[in-house]
Every structure is written in structure tokens, then in C-alpha cells.
């Protein structure tokens, strides 16, 4: 009963005209920056922080959160339309979403993404409200050993992302791991693989690689193909998903929501891992895994739901413990503190209107996003019919500004051009960049946690098997590996290394 009471209090706060207005403003702004590749919510929120000085605390925080989850919605739009994931979590959306767009089913992909995200957002918002504190104490039990096992699981799952040869996918993951090691090693202070370039001391930014190997490479590739130029390979079909699409999508959305809510609460790479894991799961449970990578609607629905659920539940550690789980949440923490609120257990008790108001506004914001985004689908799809010679310069400009804005320096733009060249060579070599990006994101987490776990255990590797959560994850990894390898034994040698070439 008390819970309903608090929720009512929250909705009372969230529904005031002013808070509604700022929620809408944040959601709109978030959609805008999500659609513009490279411009991330972190930078935008940093710029807007000083403006929110002049707002009441709750209104300011509602707006900033709106930008965050709005950007998650918008990010999948470019991934689907022009194969340009703006952040790690939409990399997998691009795989099947873009293929759907090429087949003329962009509208269907966008609608599934929006509806799936809304459903996931609703579930995980109520998850925060009901089980926030419980979930966060579970997240705390994840120590270095648990992370190592989780990352190994994630990396193995990444091989499923590729359509072609498993061996090539493993190579791309390893390449991603190498790229992730560039920079100063925190534990020893030594610079690694930086070629003495000061700009590489902090490592390479994700956006630089993503815009290079996805954005620039896609443009070059499209310009090379004289006959099939542009995104659309076949004619535009209907805007709305078919009945069959819905039937395939909804179980995927359910599974994605579960994975996302759960992994989102883990500090660090949780939310990113969620969309990758959802994709791998969908591919494994699908009746016809061959559809994946060729425009499977589940390949959009699952990861998108996971991504949005993860974005919502990454608020849990911040709101309940006062600990931000990623850079974006660290920005939110600054925003809270500037407004004189220190998130954590005490806020829940002393200022319930802030916590519950924010939770309620998240749901309201998600609803607004669906209302904003569904009618926009028509506009986005029309965009694909614009001749490519007019479309690609715009994409080029957005990419360049986005890369520059990460650190305000030209080095990153030049580096992204270099990755464009590398991505072009990968295309020629029929290597897919998805696993590379996952290796890149998870690699540093894997390495620091391996080292941490072994320092704490004084070098004894038994730590990975003694801790129950870690052991379970390792067993799951082993099981998945066996499942992957078993069918290969039955096939001929040739087929063994070529899972199913598209």
C-alpha cells in the first residue's frame, strides 16, 4: 500500500505542467542528439548543466534524464537507417536493422525498436520502483572475479554476432582487445601501444572507431557500388510491421527486457553487454538462425529492448547507493550535487518526492518518446528516398562534427579517417566489425578485473571457481562453447570454420 502511495506522490510531482514541459524538452533534445551521430548525451548534458542551475532541482534532473533516455531512442534510428551506431549499445541494432532498411523495411524496424524500447522502459522503470534497493545490493556482490567470468561469457557470445567465419570473428575480437589496450596502464603508469602519441594516452574513444569502421566505410562502400547506390536495395514496403513481425518480435522484447534490466544495474559495461547478450540469445533460440544478419526482426527487437531497459536500470545504483555506474551517470551525479541533492539511501528517506518524481517522469518520458517517434518514422523512411548524392555529404558532416566534439581535437577526426580505411579493408576481407567493437569495449574491463582479482587473491586462480556467481558464469560459458563447437565436429572441415556464409 505504501508503495502505491509513493508512486502516486511521484506521479503528482512528475505531472506538474512545468515538470512535464521539461520532460518533453529533454526527450526531444535527447532524440535530436541521438539521431545526430557522434554527439553523445554526456557532452550535451555537460553543456546544459549550467543552464539547469536556474531550474528547480527536480525539473533540471528530469530534463537531463530525458536527454539520456531520449538519446537511446534516437541512437537506434541512425543505426537502422544509415548503419551508423552512435554508441556501443546500438552496434547490434545496426546489424539486422540496417539490413531491414536495405530491404525496404525500415519503417517496420523503427516501429519495432520504438515499441520494444517503450515496453522495456516501462518494465524496468517499475523495476526500479519496486526492487531498486534489492537489485543494487545484488550488483554490489559483483567483484573482480565475477566480472572476469561475465566478460568471458560476453566475449564468447560476441562470436555469434558475425555472419561469416567463426575464426575471423575471433580474430576481430582479439583485434578489438588490442585496440582497447592502447593508452596508459593505470596499474603501472606505463604507456602501452601509443607510439608515443600523447593523444592516445587515454586510449581510443569508442565513437572514433564506430564512426570510422561503420560511418565512413559505409559511405565509401556505397559510392563504390554504382548500380546499387544508397541504402535502399529493394523497394520501400509498408511502414508498419506485419503481423508476422509482431509475432516474432514480442518474445524477443520480453527476453531483451529481462536481460537489460538485470545487466543494466551492473557498474561498468553492464548496459552495453545487455544488447550484445540479447542478440546472441535471440540468434541461439531462433528457429532459423540464418535470418540473423539478413534482416531478422528479432535481431532488432531483442537488443533494442535490452538497451533501453539497461539505460533505465543503470539509474538504480546511482539513486539507491549514490554510485554512478557509467560516465553518463557520473554526469547525472554532478547534476544532482549542483542542485544540492546527494543521491543515495538518505534521499530515498528524506526527499522521497525527488526519487519517486524522477521514476515517474521516466515512465512519462518513455511514453512521450513513443508518441514523438512513431509519427516521425514516416519522415525518417522518406529520408531514405532522398538521392544518395545529397544524403551522404550530410552524414559525413555529422560524423566529423561528432568525432571532433569528443575531445575538441583534430587528432580524433584524423584517427577516425584511419579507421575508415581499416574498415574498408575489413569489408574487402569479409571481416565484420561488430565483434571488434565488443572486444574493444569489454577488453579493458576484462584486463583490469583479471589483474585486480589476482592481486586480491595473491595470485591464486582458484578465486574464479570459489565464488558461486563466478562459477555459474564460467559453467555457462563452457556450456555455450561446447554448444558452438559440437555441431562443427559433425560438419566437414571446410564447413567447420565457415558457420554459414551469407
Amino acid at each position, binding site marked *: 500500500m505504501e508503495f502505491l502511495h509513493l508512486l502516486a506522490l511521484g506521479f503528482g510531482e512528475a505531472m506538474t505542467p512545468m515538470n512535464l514541459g521539461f520532460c518533453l524538452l529533454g526527450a526531444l533534445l535527447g532524440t535530436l542528439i541521438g539521431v545526430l551521430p557522434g554527439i553523445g548525451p554526456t557532452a550535451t548534458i555537460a553543456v546544459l548543466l549550467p543552464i539547469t542551475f536556474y531550474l528547480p532541482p527536480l525539473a533540471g534532473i528530469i530534463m537531463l534524464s530525458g536527454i539520456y533516455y531520449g538519446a537511446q531512442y534516437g541512437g537506434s534510428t541512425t543505426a537502422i537507417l544509415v548503419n551508423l551506431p552512435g554508441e556501443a549499445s546500438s552496434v547490434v541494432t545496426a546489424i539486422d536493422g540496417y539490413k531491414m532498411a536495405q530491404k525496404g523495411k525500415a519503417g517496420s524496424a523503427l516501429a519495432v525498436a520504438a515499441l520494444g524500447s517503450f515496453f522495456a522502459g516501462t518494465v524496468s522503470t517499475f523495476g526500479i520502483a519496486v526492487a531498486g534497493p534489492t537489485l543494487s545490493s545484488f550488483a554490489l*556482490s*559483483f*567483484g573482480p572475479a565475477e566480472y572476469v567470468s561475465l566478460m568471458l561469457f560476453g566475449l564468447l557470445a560476441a562470436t555469434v554476432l558475425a555472419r561469416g567465419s567463426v575464426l575471423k570473428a575471433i580474430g576481430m575480437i582479439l583485434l578489438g582487445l588490442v585496440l582497447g589496450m592502447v593508452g596508459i596502464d593505470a596499474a603501472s*603508469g606505463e604507456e602501452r601501444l601509443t607510439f608515443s602519441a600523447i*593523444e592516445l594516452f587515454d586510449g581510443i574513444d569508442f565513437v572514433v572507431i564506430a564512426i570510422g569502421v561503420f560511418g565512413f566505410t559505409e559511405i565509401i562502400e556505397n559510392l563504390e557500388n554504382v548500380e546499387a547506390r544508397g541504402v535502399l536495395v529493394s523497394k520501400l514496403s509498408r511502414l508498419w510491421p506485419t503481423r508476422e513481425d509482431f509475432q516474432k518480435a514480442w518474445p524477443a522484447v520480453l527476453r531483451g527486457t529481462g536481460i537489460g534490466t538485470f545487466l543494466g544495474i551492473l557498474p561498468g559495461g553492464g548496459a552495453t553487454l545487455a544488447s550484445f547478450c540479447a542478440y546472441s540469445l535471440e540468434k541461439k533460440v531462433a528457429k532459423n538462425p540464418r535470418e540473423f544478419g539478413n534482416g531478422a526482426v528479432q535481431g532488432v527487437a531483442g537488443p533494442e529492448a535490452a538497451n533501453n531497459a539497461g539505460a533505465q536500470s543503470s539509474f538504480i545504483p546511482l539513486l539507491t547507493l549514490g554510485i554512478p555506474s557509467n560516465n553518463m551517470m*557520473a554526469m547525472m551525479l*554532478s547534476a544532482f550535487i549542483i542542485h544540492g541533492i546527494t543521491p543515495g*539511501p538518505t534521499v530515498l528517506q528524506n526527499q522521497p518526492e525527488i526519487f519517486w518524481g524522477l521514476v515517474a517522469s521516466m515512465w512519462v518520458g518513455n511514453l512521450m518518446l513513443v508518441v514523438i517517434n512513431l509519427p516521425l518514422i514516416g519522415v525518417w523512411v522518406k529520408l531514405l528516398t532522398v538521392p544518395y548524392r545529397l544524403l551522404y555529404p550530410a552524414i559525413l558532416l555529422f560524423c566529423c562534427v561528432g568525432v571532433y566534439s569528443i575531445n575538441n581535437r583534430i587528432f580524433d577526426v584524423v584517427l577516425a579517417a584511419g579507421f575508415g580505411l581499416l574498415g574498408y579493408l575489413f569489408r574487402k576481407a569479409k571481416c565484420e566489425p561488430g565483434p571488434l567493437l565488443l572486444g574493444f569495449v569489454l577488453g579493458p574491463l576484462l584486463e*583490469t578485473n583479471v589483474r585486480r582479482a589476482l592481486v*586480491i587473491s595473491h595470485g591464486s586462480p582458484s578465486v574464479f571457481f570459489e565464488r558461486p556467481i563466478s562459477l555459474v558464469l564460467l559453467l555457462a560459458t563452457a556450456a555455450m562453447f561446447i554448444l558452438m563447437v559440437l555441431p562443427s565436429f559433425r560438419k566437414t572441415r571446410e564447413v567447420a570454420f565457415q558457420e554459414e556464409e551469407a
Partner: protein
Amino acid sequence: MKQLISTAALVTSMLAGIGAAHAEWPKDRPIEMIVAFAPGGGTDVMNRTLAPYIEKELGAKITILNRPGASGEIAYTAMTQAKPDGYTLSSLNTPGYLTMQMDRKVRFDPKKICPVARIVEDPGSFIVQANSEFNSLKDLVAYAKANPGKVTIGTTGLGTDEHLALLQLEKSAGVDLTAVTFNGANEARTALLGGHVMAIGINVGELMGGDHSAFKSLGQFADQRAVIAPDLPTAKEQGYDVIVSSERGIAMNCDVPEAIRSKYSDAVKKALDNPEFQEKAKQQSLALSYRSSEEWNKEMPARAERLGEIWKLVKEQK
């Protein structure tokens, strides 16, 4: 490529020279403040909060530009390369600024960096979970003596404030502690809450700025108790020679006329005294501790020397 950059820079600076019809500093164009850390971090938020009050004092416009990377080296390099006309300044943070010069050759000329005003001095501290059996550094040391190497302490990397504090405590108390590296204070705090490490190092202001009900502090590593933590005993009071603090301030190129530098320094002082700003500083738990250009400049060598001594411990450990 270097050639190209320098040629282009030359052309630009020539063009800029032609275009500039100087009014008196600081009125003819906005002052560019290079912040060495990413937007949203402690240094960035502090500077963005303070900037409007300095603007008021100077009657000039200040634009903030973030040049994060390499613990500040990128920002310091950019600042020293800009025209020394008083329109470009940068944030300055110790001990990072001093320790980066100890181990390797840096890409800027330290002789060109002149401190203009110190804003904050935030002492280091060790914290444990609120229900821990440790209540002071003494308890921690006693446990470490009985169980050598068993005490795990989270730091944010080699040569950081927390790591330097750990080394000093090891030496001063004659114990063996195990440093566990985390990427930033938030990760370390999470690990402490989950009980994966026994204690972590964190600056007092950083701790007070968040919800700290789940932690307790074992002592602060300042010379004298900081204004924001008057009840927390220092390590010295507990009998250990551990002094580490991080300073945040502002620097300019030394070629900037001294009159401009001291004018800016005064403006910072007045801005810090503004009650409206003080209110905001309190919200953010900023350990305000102003030093003028002159005073800070004078203190710098002693600080560098002390860090040099501690740095030898880092080398030994390697």
C-alpha cells in the same frame, strides 16, 4: 604532418596579428579557460560554477573549453602554445602536474606555466565501510601488522594521491599493504561497498560531496584539518607521517605580463569571497583554500620536493 601543423599555425597567428586591434585586457574578446578534464568532473564543475563570478569581477566573458587527456598534459601543452596575451588560461591540478614531470619528459615547458590562483586544497583520506572494525588508521595498521599483505586498499592508479598516501603509510608504520587499482573513485567506492577491498583512498571533498552514510573515514592526510572536515583527525595526529592533498587552481603562461596575472588572481579572490559562490561551494563540498599567484608560486617547489621524496618510494616498488 607536424610541418603542416606548424605552418598552418604560423599563418593563423600572422592573420590573427593583423586582425587584432587591441582594446585593454580583458575587454576585447572572451577569455578562454582550458579545463584539463572532461565535462562533468570535479575540476570542470568547479570552474564552470566559478566562472560567472570571475566574469562579474573582471567585466569580461569567459568561455570554457575542455581538453581532457593524459592527466592534464594535453591542456597544459595547449595553454603554453597559445599566444601569451592573457586570453588563454588553464586549470592546474597537483599532484598530477608535478608527478608527471618526475617520471618522463613532458610535452610542455614547465618553466612557462605560472600558477595564478589556488582555489581548492582537498586532503586525501582512507575510508572503510561504516560497519568496519577499523575506526582509525591505528586499527588498520595493527591489522596489517598481524596479517602482512592482507589489507587491500583501492587506489585510482600508480602515482595518484591515494597511491602516494599508501606508500607513505607503509613506510611510516612499517607495514605491507596491497594496492588494488580502480578506474576512478566511483568504481573504487562500489568495490568497497561490495566488500571486495578493505579500504579505499579518496579525497575528503570527493567523499563529502556524495552520500557518505555508508562509509567512515579513518583520517585525513592534511597538515591541518580541512575546513570541510574539522572533526576528522589527521594522520599526523595519529602518529603517521602521511601528507597528501590535491590542489585545484588556475595557471597562465609565464610570458603573460605580471600585471594581468595578478589582476586575475585578485578577481579570483573576490569571486571566492562572494557569498553566493560560497553557498554553491558548500553544496559541492569544495575545500576552498585560496592562495594568490605569489603565495602559490612560492609553495610549489617545497611541494614538488616532498612529492619527489615519495616518488622514490614508487620507484623502489617497481
